[in-house]
């Protein structure tokens, strides 16, 4: 009934670039851990982001271990092999440009990813579109937060999936990863990563997710999501678990 249509337009947008972006992750997988420093660029530039070199980056935990991070390639700082512990608190310290940035994140316990399945999509199912569902058992009595990342044939889906257990504490959860950008069809290879994340990191991803619903379903006024880094920079520091499963869609 209503003719919806879209077109690409030119907009005069301001330039507030050159701001520090910190993305720090500590996982429960034994290996080097990575913290990436870059700067934002104007909207009209290509998607290449200048690395921030020469920073001093360390991570310490609540058992008095300190891990030094060394740069290479430019802007990417990595540690020697180590594995994040469930329930441990990690503190990131980044010194660059005369400022010291710190952030804390506590790695939650692991909630096993049971399986991922596919089913007929809600809309346009007649042309065989599929939808992916993740299955896990949420532990009762504790707050759990999750982030899922999905790749279809190696391409990352740009939808953000941040879940919590506000309405599903203790339940066996069948969570649909609803996305409308990359269509999924039988024969596609779908990879899903499940992360158990702490509350501040969940708020970060959930805010980004809410801003993504800009359509007639409503969206909220966009802003930079609340970071756990102090003084505030763009980005986040997250100590989280990680599990991955792959299926071929039937």
């Amino acid at each position, binding site marked *: 009934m209503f003719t919806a249509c879209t077109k690409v337009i030119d907009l005069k947008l301001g330039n507030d670039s050159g701001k520090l972006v910190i993305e720090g992750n500590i996982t429960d997988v034994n290996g080097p851990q990575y913290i990436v420093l870059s700067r934002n660029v104007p909207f009209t530039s290509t998607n290449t982001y200048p690395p921030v070199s020469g920073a001093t980056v360390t991570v310490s935990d609540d058992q008095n271990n300190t891990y030094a991070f060394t740069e290479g390639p430019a802007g990417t700082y990595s540690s020697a092999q180590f594995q994040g512990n469930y329930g441990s608190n990690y503190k990131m310290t980044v010194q660059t440009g005369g400022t010291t940035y710190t952030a804390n994140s506590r790695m939650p316990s692991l909630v096993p990813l049971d399986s991922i399945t596919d089913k007929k999509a809600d809309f346009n199912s007649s042309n065989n579109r599929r939808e992916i569902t993740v299955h896990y058992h949420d532990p009762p009595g504790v707050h759990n937060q999750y982030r899922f*990342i999905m790749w279809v044939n190696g391409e990352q889906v740009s939808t953000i999936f941040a879940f919590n257990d506000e309405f599903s504490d203790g339940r066996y959860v069948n969570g649909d990863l609803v996305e409308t950008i990359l269509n999924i069809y039988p024969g596609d290879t779908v990879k899903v990563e499940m992360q158990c994340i702490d509350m501040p990191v969940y708020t970060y991803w959930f805010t980004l997710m809410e801003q993504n619903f800009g359509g007639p379903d409503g969206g909220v006024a966009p802003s930079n999501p609340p970071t756990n880094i102090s003084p505030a920079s763009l980005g986040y520091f997250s100590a989280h678990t990680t599990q991955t499963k792959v299926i071929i869609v039937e």
Partner: protein
Amino acid sequence: MDLIYSTVLPGISSSSNLFHSLLKISRKGIHLQQILCMRTIVLCLSFLCTTLTLSAQKRFIVSGTIEDRSSGERLIGATVKIKEPGNGGTTTNTYGFYSLSLPPGNFTLVYSYVGYDTVEKVVPATSDQVIDIRLNPQKELNEVVIKSNKPNNDNVASPQMGEDKLNMAQANSVPVLLGEKDILKTITLLPGIQSAGEGNTGYYVRGGASDQNLILLDEATVYNASHFFGFFSTFNSDAIKDVSIFKGGMPAEYGGRLSSVLDVKMLDGNNKDYNVEGGIGLISSRLKIEGPIVKDKGSFMISARRTYIDLFLHASSDSTLKGSSLYFYDINAKANYHFDDKNTLYISGYFGKDVLELKNIFGTLWGNSTGTIRFNHIFNNRLFSNTSLVYSNYNYTIEDLQSANYFKAASQINDVNFKEDLQYSLSNVHTLKFGLNVLHHTIAPGTITTDAASSFNDVSVEERYGYENAAYVSDEWRLNSKVTFLYGFRLSSLFLLGPGTFKTYDPAGNVLTSATYSSGALVKDYFNLEPRFTASYLLNDESSVKASYNRNTQNIHLLNNSTSSTPADLYVMSSNNIKPEISDQVSTGYFRNFSENTYEFSAEIYYKWLQNQIDYKDGAQLIVNPDVESLLTYGSGRAYGMELFFKKKYGKFNGWVGYTLSRTELKFAAINDGNYFPATQDRTNDLSVVGIYQLNDRWSFSSDFIYATGNAVTFPTGKYVIGGLTTFSYSQRNGYRMPSSHRLDIGATLEGKKHKKYHSSWTFGIYNVYAHRDPYLITFQDSKTVPNTTEAVETSIFATRIPSVTWNFKF
């Protein structure tokens, strides 16, 4: 019909609870302040009465009602003028009642109303008397707009300012989307009232948010006045008699919202003859039946409408869409009975529902229901009373129908309102209005029910109870033939009551205190005294200047952080955390008529200060959240502007031009570094042009054109990569503008040939004549065409011409 009963009846039975609870409150005698304020009102009243009665000796009262001779509908705002100069006049109230006081002597009273023949009556003022008048409507419906024997200068002479009255005949001529006549869309063509967006019935008045408008249908609050996500309003024009909107100079009898009052009155029904009328349109059909219950004594009116958008879905090849439902309907019903000259009873109700269901996937239902019982009593020729018992409900449910994820979320707000309004004509220079209002709210913020296989738990958020009570008094005082004052005040209060657990939060949202209250225990109360003042000075018969100051407060707040109208509206009362919203407005205006009142011109400027405004923290999840008040942040605002209005009221060609220049800014410590930023609805320029032309007896044409500055929005000022995804950075809230919007619509009406038994007409329309792409939304994303870059994408929903045709009949 079962649906109506089940919805209206609980309201009636809960009214006994209301009186019970009222009694409980007054017994406790808890509120010294309230008692003091009440005393003050009583004192002021008795003072006024004595002083004014002294000055009003040796005068006689002429009172009565004015109604339509053919249908018996009482006429609201009809004019009674004293022909002899220097004696003024009056207008009928919302029940068609008037009262005038005259010194001894012979007078000629002139009774007039737009679209009716004028009646003159010579009255020897030697005693009090009752004169009921029946005016003859001029013949053709369309001529309501076109001819009137005596154009009046009410807009210049009345002390009221900031009020717009919608002429229903004129409103019905304006072309609209898909031929669905819609008063909420038509009022946005008036200056100072802005549409919330294309195809959206939400509106902003003088910079206020859309939840700061009070919408009344026969005195009942309509919480969500939209159907189908805001594309249509809940008001079926067939059932509506009168529409007034107050955007400033708010009369003391209204209160509870910051920005405006939209007062909609349903038709009473024809008490002479039976009538059936209706229409068949592209997306909906409607039918109205009215007639006498007892001839000349009582009448009824029932009007219904249903859309059939889902017929299009059933034609779809997609199996999900094919089995889905998408429609809304509404029913308006009213009955009245005049027991005698002094007692009239009115019963009216509204029931509407939206249904959206995707087969086996998802379903949502939402709707309003209201019921009003009113009793008019004329104590004597000076004192008119109206007593109302009003019920109002808004509820929604959202259901996930997939077996692995079944849940049903439901929420509702339920009001029972007792109102007593009195109008006392002290003399022909003083008309007093006073009354009180006891409104009980029950808010069920949300429950979620699930089954064993679902991913979700049952959740229930505590219900909230409270009273919003108010008392008011106002006086319209004609100091002399040039100066009139309309002044008074309203005392508004909120009592938040137990049972329940009530928490307070620090600015970061952490729980500070938590306390449990028993049933009926007072948790928090607020009192606000709202002065209302307007003065007008008549420069001559054709021009005047007016000024006003008024304060409004709001104790019920809509929480919805989505940018469009969704059914998931959550209402909260002022509480330990949320303070009443307060607005103070000053305005002044110049009013000028030309050519014997054929043309009206007005210019008004206003400035508003807003306090205790509400916004949301980042990542706020509002639905079924017991700690929803921890997610709010509070700030202030200011709004100012100028409104110009030029209207041709009569003649073959009539219409208006409205222009608004305005600014609205908000300030929150947590947003935009604590600096003022433009509100979303801040529109610098807003222009509407409406023209209606009667070619001959059968053809009439209409057209409207709108232009508005785009909404203030937040666009990215940079980008970065996070989590493997391109992410945008922002520096200023609402620092950018959507492109400005403009549109031209045209319509035509063809009246059928005259026929004794029936009448029919065709309405044709084209919406968006030059197919302008009005931007609805702009999104930012990785480019689909040029790798490694980003792009801005504009979405419009009505980017083409949309024709419509409706066939209307009446017999």
